[in-house]
């Protein structure tokens, strides 16, 4: 986009790069903020339906579409309170710390092949590292509020998040090992093709470890049944007891942002990323190298796939939240240390040996190993140079298209 602004529009270079960066940042911000609006409405509706109620029905039409907007306006109008004994600076900064951590992780998250803020060759590692920082904002909030409830909530959250990072890390390592790369783009591209190429179905061990990942992901973003940090039956509201108005809503946006993030990470690592269960773009004959418009269309489909999978993950988290009762703190720790960690370790070893013995995965005979499909253009400069269509069999791509593609 910067090239376009410089060469076609004729803007000076610094302005073009500035605009490009601004657009990217604004897009990511809108994914979090707009996502939070939609998810809050969805959460209200899902909670209501699970509890045999209707939920919001009047604000903005029949289904209460505008309920989140009304909530937002209410939060804006609220007085921004701060307890007298609080540590003012930390109290005011804590929500932004949480939100920034959530936001930063999105920078390295690819939405489609090159719809990514900054492609890092250690993308997985970066996302997991930054995600762990969100807890720092919560600890600051709990400490700076000068309230026993907040401090207890923050301590619980710290203990829980630090513990769950261990099995979470082990789960994340398995797809990294299978793909041979920590680059999220490469990991997702290796799962291209039909849905059976996903690492979820790579072998029995990855199937099990996916569910361990789901458990750990729910725990690490503090959703029920692991929301001990804000257990309202014991701790009033936990770490955000003393917050109101917009600062409180920043915590919520960070929480919904993180939920979306871990779901998108699950989609990228285990469920093929932007490759749908059915390779629509490939069946339509649109492949890399058939022209800029086609490329863009393929990416849009990919983006739609990834967002769909991530939204599905968030909805499952809501379903779990309103279905299961909250665990006790010792049960949370037991789940992590006595179940998730050993299972993850065993599955890690299992997936490693499976990969040694049968490198193609369990569906090897049925479908083409995904690694062979796009290897060529992954390695090419800028990722676009080698056309993928050249390696796609003629049965899939109409021969006219193929003739155009081949050099």
């Amino acid at each position, binding site marked *: 986009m910067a090239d376009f602004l410089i060469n076609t529009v004729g803007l000076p270079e610094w302005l073009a*790069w500035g605009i490009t960066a601004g657009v990217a940042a604004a897009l990511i911000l809108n994914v979090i903020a707009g996502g939070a609006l939609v998810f809050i409405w969805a959460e209200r509706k899902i909670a209501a339906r699970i509890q045999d109620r209707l939920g919001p029905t009047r604000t903005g039409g029949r289904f209460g579409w505008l309920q989140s907007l009304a909530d937002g306006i209410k939060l804006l109008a609220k007085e921004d309170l701060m307890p007298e004994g609080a540590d003012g600076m*930390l109290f005011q900064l804590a929500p932004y710390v949480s939100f920034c951590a959530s936001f930063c992780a999105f920078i390295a998250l690819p939405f489609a092949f090159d719809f990514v803020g900054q492609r890092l060759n*250690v993308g997985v*590692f*970066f996302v997991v590292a*930054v995600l762990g920082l969100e807890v720092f904002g919560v600890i600051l909030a709990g400490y700076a509020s000068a309230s026993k409830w907040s401090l207890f909530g923050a301590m619980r959250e710290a203990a829980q998040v630090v513990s769950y990072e261990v099995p979470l890390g082990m789960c994340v390592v398995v797809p990294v090992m299978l793909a041979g*790369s920590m680059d999220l783009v490469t990991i997702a591209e290796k799962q291209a093709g039909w849905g059976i190429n996903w690492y979820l179905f790579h072998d029995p061990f990855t199937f099990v470890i996916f569910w361990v990942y789901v458990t750990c992901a729910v725990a690490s973003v503090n959703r029920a049944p692991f929301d001990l940090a804000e257990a309202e039956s014991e701790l009033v509201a936990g770490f955000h007891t003393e917050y109101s108005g917009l600062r409180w809503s920043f915590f919520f946006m960070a929480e919904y942002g993180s939920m979306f993030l871990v779901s998108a990470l699950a989609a990228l690592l285990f469920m093929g990323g932007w490759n749908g269960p059915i390779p629509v773009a490939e069946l339509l004959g649109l492949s890399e190298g058939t022209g800029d418009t086609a490329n863009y269309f393929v990416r849009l489909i990919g983006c739609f796939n990834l967002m769909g999978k991530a939204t599905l993950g968030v909805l499952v988290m809501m379903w779990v939240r309103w279905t299961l009762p909250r665990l006790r703190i010792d049960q949370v720790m037991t789940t992590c240390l006595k179940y998730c960690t050993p299972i993850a370790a065993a599955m890690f070893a299992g997936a490693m040996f499976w990969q040694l013995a049968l490198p193609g995965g369990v569906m090897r005979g049925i479908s083409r190993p995904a690694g062979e499909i796009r290897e060529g253009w992954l390695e090419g400069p800028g990722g676009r140079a080698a056309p993928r269509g050249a390696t796609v069999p003629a049965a899939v791509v109409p021969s006219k298209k193929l003739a155009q593609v081949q050099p």
Partner: protein
Amino acid sequence: MLAVINWHSILFLVFAGLACAFAVAVVVADNIVRMAFYLVLALGSTAGLFFLAGAEFIGAMQLMIYVGGTLVLLVFGVMLTAQAPFISIKTSTNDRVLAGVVGAALLAVLLQAAFSVEAWRRPGVGQVANPSATPLGMALLGVRVDDPPAGTSPSLVRSGYLLPFEIVSVHLLVVLVGAAYLARAKRRRTPRGIETADVAASGGSR
């Protein structure tokens, strides 16, 4: 005219300035949690410097280990040992002077060392075209895939880092076992026999 500005240098200065400013703030602050907060920001700025230099693996490592791990542990330590809310640490003037002298001496030594290396004065030496963490990971497994520097014998270059890696792992394991031993619930004798401190604490609220 603005087009010729070297954005890399400007960003470098921004991150370096932030890192230095927050490092000074760590020293100046007297509330221990604020110190931790400034330390997070200083270390985060350092990670930013690493990302700017294209060393993404080290940058993510910095975030994970220093910013994440160390500071969560620090905050844990503070909260478990704090007797009163908002503990503050007042530094005496003597300590400040002493720390200043030591810091200045270290800075002088480091500056001298940094500017005396001939190779670091030329820009762009030793740049890798497509940086990746793979050679590092392979080297940790004992296989060197990067090219050996000229003039060294192959047997020395090819050894990798497997032995140091294993030694560090065993060392960490020993530390973990030791920590678990020190932190386990102490058994003590009561009229009813031996019970753990846990049971005694939860059973008798007194």
